[in-house]
């Protein structure tokens, strides 16, 4: 029994030590893109709500010109593990490209199988719905 207590205590102490070393004071690790301070004329930035995913918060901003989305910025994405960085490097650009191709058909809305909300989709939808 004594050995068990020792093992548990040592493990917890080790965990606390490791985790403390990696803890940084900022509450959120923020991604690279800052919302553009000044945009070319005719373009407006619409910022979606922050969506809480299991990996951390995600926030998306779209830049709209007339009725068309011309750019998508990821304002906030998790960056606390290498995995997060990889998603940021590869997955978001792909999602953005697909978004732009969907909307380049100049559609007003999408009919599809009923959705519940996923983090990114919800964010983009709210960005579109918030704009106007």
């Amino acid at each position, binding site marked *: 029994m004594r050995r068990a207590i020792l093992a548990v205590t040592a493990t917890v102490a080790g965990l606390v030590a*490791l985790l403390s070393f990696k803890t940084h004071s900022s509450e959120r690790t923020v991604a690279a893109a800052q919302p553009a301070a000044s945009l070319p004329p005719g373009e407006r930035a619409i910022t979606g709500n922050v969506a809480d995913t299991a990996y951390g918060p995600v926030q998306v901003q779209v830049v709209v010109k007339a009725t068309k989305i011309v750019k998508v910025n990821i304002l906030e994405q998790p960056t606390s593990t290498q995995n997060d960085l990889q998603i940021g490097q590869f997955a978001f650009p792909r999602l953005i490209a697909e978004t732009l191709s969907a909307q380049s058909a100049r559609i007003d809305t999408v009919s599809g199988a009923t959705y519940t909300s996923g983090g990114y989709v919800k964010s983009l939808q709210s960005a579109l719905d918030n704009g106007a």
Partner: protein
Amino acid sequence: MATAVGPRALLAAIAAGAAAVLALWWHSTLSLSGLGGWLTGAGEILGLLAGYAVVVLVLLMARIRPIERGIGADRLARWHAMGGRYVIGLVSGHALAIVWGYAVTAHASPVSETATLLTNYPDVLMATVAWFLLLGVALVSARAVRRKMSYETWYYLHFYTYLAIALAFSHQFADGAAFTSSLVARFWWSVLYLLVATLVIWYRVWVPARDFARHKLRVAGVRQEGPRTVSIYISGRRLRELAAEPGQFFRWRFLTRDLWWQSHPYSLSAVPSDELMRITVQDVGEHSAALASLRPGTRVIAEGPFGAFIPDRTNRSVLLLAGGVGITPLRAMFAALSGTVTLIYRASTWQDVVFQAELDAIAEARGATVHYVVGSRQDLGGDPLSPTVLRRLAPGLHRMDVYLCGPPGMTGTAVAALTEAGVPRRRIHFESFEF
């Protein structure tokens, strides 16, 4: 002398591996914050350690010859049991911390997060099944439960751990933050698992099969040594190549219709020749009782030799202390050692004493001494192996290396008595039969 890996060396290697695993987590984590980050981080560390520890546990039981020789089967089994309990804790802690951590980060309830993890994350369902399998194996390995089932049932249930490890493997790469973004990490982790799998197959499957073909072991004959004790003579060829030392044991599998699926450890009770080995077995259970009726010519698979209970021949002054059936390996040592050798043989009745003629003959031929301490405590008036008695039967005891073999109760009191009689702990050697 064949290579042996000592306990300190093995523990150091295990610790180094654990440190490397922690370094892997360190390298793949840039920063974390908040309760969700801490819980998830803890879950990741526990998961990595668990994935490493199961491999270590398998390694301990892989019957790797240098390790068996340097550490001994009984100690390895004890380490495996202790480590097993710790691993259950690691795996359970990992599962709970991950669910909780993800739930906090996603502002969801732990229940809904569990459902999300099970249905949306690849291979998590399999890993959860693996967890429950491990819990089940842990449950049946608990002493209270294990006592109620036959050894063979427990033994085969324990094999489900292999299935659990296989089921849980893929989720490490699919979901583990340290692995998903690092090909190098996945590569070395796979190498680790592959290495241990290879060692297991090599030492537990290939080597026994190879030895079986090479040495062609057969039962040569069975001799009754006492009312409940039989010796089994086993013939073969090129047995010298097995390099069995007196004091060591093999895991024996007798290929009869009823016994082929069981393997039991018995020590050599005589120094082996190139063509003949002998084991001596006391009738204590179904298997040992059946051995008395083995027919000559029965084929035998012998896995081994195992055991760290090998005399160190540098000290020329040796005491062999046998209790009951513990005489078996010591009888082999008695015949092999030179120098000043004293054998104290403790038995409850004269009927339990075996090899008396052999022991006396060896004593006379080699100038060694045998003392038979026979009878109950009442007959002998007190503790028959008290420090005083021991010092009297083995003069110069404090300078001797003592090799001790017997039932656990006797071993415990003997170690205490020897220590009190002045023998340093490091010169008391014993191997437990209970593993």
